[in-house]
């Protein structure tokens, strides 16, 4: 008992740890555990898949001698847990290994493909939010009207139409027939190499360098895939916004506000919409995270060299260093967006503090 007391009081001997520091430490520990767990599961799946990683490196024509040498070089002669330990040790030193598919460092590859995805996903989410939120609010306010029907129809199409088909049709109409937008890829052949990369996002880099002709060309390349992804975000966001708004508009406080003679605009935006912001943040964050994860089919159709197609192609080629590197990025994105959402909760809702 005395010992227990000593332990209990021992914690009080030093200066008290501030609440923010304890919370930050807890967050860091949670993030680290999440990423480690994610890495462990992905690593083990990669190792137990019925695919020989050595063949992915040396090809099917290699001799047994070359096979054995590569087997040892990849460390596959070690126990699985040792292999995982070595990998984590390397990762902690910033070494993600080399991609067997591209022959380059995984960090170099990801530094190349992630900005492309970030640029596309951000623009897609912006389109989805700018159009989806007003559409959802309007549909809720005019419930049962033709606008509501249109919003629901748009949502339904967004959910049910295969993105591959929609992408090809979009390309055919806006690029092939109308010529309103540029074709696949991030930049036209005449504009490549003009802008020295800063962030890797061509729109941002071109703007920062003041290269507006490059900016315009890059925008004409990105707008169609971004609009396509934005449409899918729009379908999700508008549907959820409508649902959240309907719940608020049926609340007694809204009736009270109206009875008190507040303008309809004030009731909708000042009261009802204000109360759905937290839920909307979650919805938008999830939509954004999904796009950041990479939209493989969109990337394939539009020859967009993004993270989704990078990870998928690597997985099919059993290029596990690339898959693991990509997994860490995606895991970090989800964790980061969750933390950001939490911070926004506190901003929008003082009770969350």
């Amino acid at each position: 008992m005395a010992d227990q007391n000593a332990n209990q009081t021992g914690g009080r001997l030093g200066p008290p740890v501030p609440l923010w520091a304890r919370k930050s430490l807890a967050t860091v520990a949670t993030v680290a555990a999440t990423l480690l767990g994610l890495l462990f599961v992905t690593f083990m799946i990669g190792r137990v898949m019925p695919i020989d990683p050595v063949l992915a490196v040396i090809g099917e024509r290699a001799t047994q001698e070359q096979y054995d040498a590569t087997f040892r070089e990849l460390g596959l002669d070690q126990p699985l847990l040792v292999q995982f330990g070595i990998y984590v040790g390397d990762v902690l030193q910033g070494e993600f290994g080399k991609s067997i598919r591209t022959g380059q460092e995984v960090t170099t590859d990801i530094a190349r493909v992630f900005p492309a995805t970030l640029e596309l996903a951000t623009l897609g989410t912006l389109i989805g939010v700018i159009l989806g939120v007003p559409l959802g609010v309007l549909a809720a306010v005019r419930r049962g009207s033709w606008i509501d029907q249109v919003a629901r129809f748009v949502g339904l199409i967004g959910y049910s139409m295969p993105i591959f088909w929609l992408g090809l049709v979009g390309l055919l109409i806006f690029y092939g027939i109308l010529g309103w937008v540029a074709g696949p890829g991030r930049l036209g052949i005449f504009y490549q190499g003009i802008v020295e990369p800063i962030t890797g996002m061509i729109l941002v880099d071109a703007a920062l360098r003041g290269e507006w002709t490059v900016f315009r060309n890059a925008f004409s390349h990105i707008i169609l895939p971004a609009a396509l992804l934005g449409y899918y975000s729009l379908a999700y966001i508008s549907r959820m916004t409508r649902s959240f708004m309907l719940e608020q508009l049926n609340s007694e406080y809204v009736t009270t506000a109206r009875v008190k003679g507040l303008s309809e605009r004030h009731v909708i935006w000042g009261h009802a919409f204000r109360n759905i912001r937290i839920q909307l943040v979650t919805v938008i964050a999830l939509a954004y995270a999904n796009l950041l994860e990479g939209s493989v089919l969109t990337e394939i159709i539009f020859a967009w060299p993004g993270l989704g197609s990078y990870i998928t192609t690597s997985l099919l080629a059993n290029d596990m260093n690339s898959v693991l590197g990509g997994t860490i990025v995606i895991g970090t994105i989800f964790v980061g967006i969750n933390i950001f959402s939490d911070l926004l909760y506190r901003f929008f809702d003082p009770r969350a503090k």
Partner: protein
Amino acid sequence: MKNCFVAAAVAATMIMGATAPVQADTPPNMLVIANRIDDIKTFDPAESFEFAGADVSRNVYEKLVNFDPLDLEAGYQPQLAESWEISEDGMTITFTMAEGHTFASGNPVTAKDAEFSLRRAVQLNKTPSFILTQFGFTPENVEETIVATDDKTLVLTLDKPYALSFVLNCLTATIGGIVDMETVMANEVDGDMGNAWLRTNTAGSGPYKVVDWKPSESVLMDLNPNYHGDEPAMQRVIVQHIQESATQRLQLERGDIDVARNLSPEDVAGLEGVEGVKIVDELRGRLMYFAANQKKEMLADPKVIEALKLATDYEGMSGSFLKGQYTVHQAFLPRTFLGALDETPFTFDMEAAKAALAESDHPDCGPIKISVRDAQERLDIAQSLQNTWGQLGCEIELIVGTGAQTLDRYRAREHDIYLGAWGPDYPDPNTNAGTFAFNPDNSDEAGATGLLAWRNAWDIPEMSEETLAAVVENDTDARREMYIELQREHQQVSPFGIMFQQIEQNGMGASVENFVAGGATTAVSYWVITK
């Protein structure tokens, strides 16, 4: 509220309209190609072994001997070597280097560069090294067997008197590319002989040099200012990675690219009659075949194999879903190779197939699993086999997997039937004879996973001897006859059902001339293209 939404929608539409790009064809001195290039891992000729990598290598590196793209049938021609002599015992080949060839760096090409390039290819021991080591070169003996006696003379000493054509054909492969020793060694790291640097850079004397490569995105090549030959019309070549056939077609129709290299049959058909676009067919070296594992009792019965070969609808497939992409071919050497056999002894004949099966020890057939990778054309073929072999009474199950999964089973000799493709590694008949008809040790312990005959547990000591005899026959006509006979025998007795040879259909602008994808023997040549 409503106005806000309408305004946002109108603004979005206006933005879309405002992005309208200026329509322009590609410049007359620039070639823009859409291709699937995500298989490029390296540009190092000692290591590169992928199709898209070979396309780059052929345009960047010269070799001792090489193919003239406008006359592929002429076979190897002098390039960096102006002449060669073979010793009386047939074991020493002496090359005399041609004058005037210069690397992109400005360094002259000498026999020392050739010695360095061939030696490092053997010493690095990467996957394609077998193309050279099959002549007895080893990392330990290259200093005696690959020797530049002076700047103009290179001497190769072989371990056996191989057919000269065999050796020279092998030197036209990617691994025969001659690199700039001084530049490469200046970039050596930890004794890698410049391997890491050459993965992403080039140091050749060919018409072009790579100036930018973004993996799975694009390769940009500019003229080598020191190129020895006539200046190519295309001063810049850009190859863009475009995965989708439909996307390539749209780009071609819009004039944004000059050549589309991966068009599906549907898109080829869709381009027929489109103004300003043409389709050029070219026979390539890839074969599509099925192979039966001889470890499986039923499939080791020759009559069962005969029945399966007769119950394959070759014409039906090549005339429908493979139309324009594959032509019927039933021998292990692709057409245009030395000794290629045109005969197609098997046609779809269900009655004959049933009769052959009835004569076998398994008249009721039985369960057969076909291992096939998840590629559309292969799945289509597998389904056709499932249908027609099913008519024989066999219970056909398709085991679909990724390329790696399917290959793993094949190399482990765990399949029943493997449905796959095979492309030549180098432009000599031994490239296919040495794998379809060569298996000197059929034991599991031999682990000869590189040999297709071994993968199918096909024990052929006598045929292996015949194959070996053909590589040392120095009379080219006699050698041709040996391969023809070998294939005739192979067609009848082997567990391989070779079905088709690939036709590559490239879509291109009507003004593009001299686009040669490389036929069955080599890769694409950009330097002769005009438009």
